[in-house]
């Protein structure tokens, strides 16, 4: 049997956040999770670190919490937050009144916004629907929920906290009306582990009521299933939201090489029995496609669902229910913490631990907002977004070769042959086979006075001729299509002379 001060049931963002907070305030604790960390709604969400914009009109309090937490997490969790920025796009027909309310509410709360013309928005995210009326920039970010949980647990581990994953709580031990411990089964061995503590925190998300019942308590929740899809491409470098009241499929979030789009919102009874309806995926793709038309053609690699534990209310549409959170004192040594969202997990943990400190009559301030997450020094951060950020001057989009790469080879080799640059940088080796970038590489060589314009024109002509020798054998399907485009650009738009 293990003895500790606090038992946390649930290894989602909230539970992991509570473990970290307790660790930093020196309170012994033990976390029990029936699966792995982030296995529930935490790992089945967008991975959107809200700016608050999504809720600013319907729930300004929640929006303010989101924005404050957004600032904190960007600061303390550098390696699990990708600072993408976000856009709220207004499509033709979307309410202008909502736009006005949105901007006014953001200003009242202090969420920074910038109204962008359609042209400017298309520059930032070229895949956007060119029909958009305008876009409003907000500080949305992308966040890795798995990494976030692991880093929170790292602090707990460093301070001697205990944790057991793949252990399911089967019993809450009570004595004289008070909860004094739990029994949990090890999924691998079937062995039963018994842990005693003074306080039990039920942070089990959609399973909160099921856990509470083990102690004879009730936590009335509305379970709301949200489904999402993942594309095989990163179609946008920014978070894209629809500028309208929350609805299905109005958020797209880039995450490394992919994009996530969602969500839906459907009330469900049992968090262990959820399935995705085919129509849900269709609705998400169609709605996301209105903001980024490529969605309709892009490969969808997976769909998945999470279950939001929302505070029950009389409102029938689960979207109308507050995304705020609540701590319930069951008056028997057990607390349940419900509601909230990934973005506000730290604040939820802080309030929960404040309550625990009170109960223990201990005084130590929360430090989770100031201290960077432990263990980040070992992580690489976001390689893809870093690479993209460094590549402001990409001249070969297929192979991600920058102007600086080309200039470096020119300086190192003083070459007069564009082929030498290609062999040393992979410029022109991708799908368009140099159709776009050779013109640019030759232009850069002119800028450095390596070639005269006449020479570079001849080099371009020779290159196109040489390239065609190989391509000609493979001209059908999309390759033929691309070839026709390249021909159209050189012979049409650039009016290149056929013969010299």
């Amino acid at each position: 049997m293990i003895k500790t001060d606090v038992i946390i049931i649930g290894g989602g963002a909230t539970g992991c956040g509570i473990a970290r907070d307790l660790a930093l305030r020196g309170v012994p604790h033990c976390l029990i999770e029936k699966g792995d960390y982030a296995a529930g709604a935490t790992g089945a969400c967008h991975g959107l670190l809200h700016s608050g914009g999504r809720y600013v009109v319907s729930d300004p309090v929640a929006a303010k919490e989101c924005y404050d937490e957004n600032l904190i997490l960007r600061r303390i969790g550098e390696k699990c937050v990708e600072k993408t920025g976000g856009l709220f796009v207004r499509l033709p027909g979307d309410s202008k009144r909502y736009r006005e309310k949105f901007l006014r509410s953001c200003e009242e709360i202090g969420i920074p916004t910038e109204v962008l013309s359609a042209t400017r928005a298309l520059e930032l995210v070229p895949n956007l629907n060119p029909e958009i009326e305008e876009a409003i920039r907000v500080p949305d970010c992308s966040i890795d929920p798995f990494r976030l949980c692991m880093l929170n647990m790292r602090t707990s581990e460093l301070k001697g906290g205990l944790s057991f994953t793949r252990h399911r709580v089967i019993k809450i031990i009570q004595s004289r009306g008070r909860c004094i411990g739990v029994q949990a089964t090890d999924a691998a061995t079937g062995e039963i582990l018994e842990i005693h503590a003074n306080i039990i925190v039920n942070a089990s998300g959609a399973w909160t009521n099921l856990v509470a019942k083990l102690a004879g308590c009730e936590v009335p929740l509305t379970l709301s299933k949200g489904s999402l899809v993942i594309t095989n491409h990163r179609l946008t470098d920014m978070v894209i939201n629809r500028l309208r009241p929350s609805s299905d499929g109005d958020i797209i979030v880039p995450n490394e090489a992919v994009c996530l789009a969602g969500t839906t919102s459907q009330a469900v009874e049992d968090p262990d029995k959820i399935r995705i309806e085919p129509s849900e995926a269709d609705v998400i793709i169609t709605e996301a496609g209105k903001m980024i038309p490529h969605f309709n053609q892009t490969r969808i690699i997976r769909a998945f669902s999470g279950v939001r534990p929302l505070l029950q209310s009389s409102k029938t549409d689960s979207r109308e229910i507050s995304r705020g959170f609540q701590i319930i004192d069951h008056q028997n040594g057990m607390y349940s913490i419900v509601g909230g969202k990934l973005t506000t997990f730290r604040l939820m943990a802080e309030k929960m631990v404040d309550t625990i400190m009170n109960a223990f009559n201990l005084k130590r301030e929360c430090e989770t907002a100031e201290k960077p997450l432990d263990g980040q020094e070992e992580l690489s951060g976001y390689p893809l977004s870093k690479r993209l950020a460094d590549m402001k001057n990409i001249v070969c989009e297929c192979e991600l070769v920058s102007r600086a790469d080309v200039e470096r080879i020119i300086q190192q080799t003083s070459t007069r042959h564009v082929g030498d640059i290609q062999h040393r940088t992979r410029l022109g080796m991708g799908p368009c086979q140099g159709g776009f970038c050779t013109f640019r590489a030759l232009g850069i060589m002119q800028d450095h006075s390596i070639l005269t314009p006449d020479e570079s024109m001849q080099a371009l002509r020779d290159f196109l001729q040489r390239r065609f020798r190989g391509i000609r054998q493979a001209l059908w399907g999309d390759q033929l299509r691309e070839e026709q485009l390249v021909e159209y650009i050189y012979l049409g738009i650039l009016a290149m002379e056929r013969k010299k």
Partner: protein
Amino acid sequence: MSVVEYDIVVIGAGVAGLTAGARLAEHGYRVALVTTGEPTACLSTGCIDLCANGARPLYAARELPREHPLHLVSDTDIAEAFGRFLEVMRERGRVYTGSLEHNRCVLSALGTLKTTCLTPAGMAASPQSDNEVIRIITFSGLKDFYPKYILSRFAHASFSSYDAGASTTMGIASRLERDEYLEAFIVWLEKLDIRENKIGLPAVLGMKNTAEVIRRIESRLERPVFEIPTLPPSMPGRRLFNDLKDHFRNKGGDIFWSWPVVGVEKAGGLIEAVFTRTEGKPNSLNARAFVLATGSFVGGGLTATRQTITENVFDLPVHVPSGREGWFDEDYFSPDHRIGKVGVCVDSSFRPEHSHWENIFVCGGILAHAQILKNGCGHGLSLATGYAAAGSCAEYLK
């Protein structure tokens, strides 16, 4: 399945589809236009070429080989189509220059003079010979514009470079739409003390308010300003598309954006509906007539397989002059790649030949024997055949 009824469904949002759609809508018909996305017009220079094989576009068009689709459009219809286009653009504050009598030149980013018929406002002052005395303004970091290509062909040209803080055409265009940014740019230009007769810039002078941007630069610098078309993304192409699209909508047309056609309902010699897929359920767009303006390969109207070439919406017969080995000549710069002749053959009423459909009308780049690059007949062909096919369609619906 949801079913929507129209008089005409146009497939394709390029110059041909939007021209045909607008003309039919002006006749009072209920017109829907479906498109999978942006047309190739967005990649274009925004110029309207009719026939570049000589100094006089209409005359040169009449010299084209007998089978060329421009011969299906009467002189009157071509004149009407171009006249209407000029009028629409003028109403929208985009004055095009040129006429069917004389071809004009537009300076390309390679320094060559491209022959065209009508040029958008930004290119009205484009040099007509390489003797002209011009100053090129470029933007440092702009990856698709290298002024030295132009300098090598113009004895009296020089260039200056402005740091716009952006490396794409779209990026600079969006900045120049902002007043304070434009003002700073003009102040910088004034300090250059430009003595040349004209000022040329890559085509980045705003998106919506190009005319105003040009007017402001011209009045302060006291000399004409012209834009030089760039590689895609092309601002002039996008402006042209936006104007035609808005015009079509103003005439009452509906656009179904991002709606690929996935099926067709037929009965006897008639097409009754096209199916699209959206919101997870099939949608049926029923109509009495259909205008096919899906373009060639780049536009997505035609697809080449290893064996043959097919038309993607109605599976119409496609004119394919040879087996795959003959589609392209060995010389890349050959003007006679046979792939340029591939397309759908139509009769004098723009109905597809060798098929029994009575209510399909075909126009634009998908037409066989066009050889658009060889003949320099891109948007002009679309404008003329789109207009004429709409006339034929309206005649049929009477």
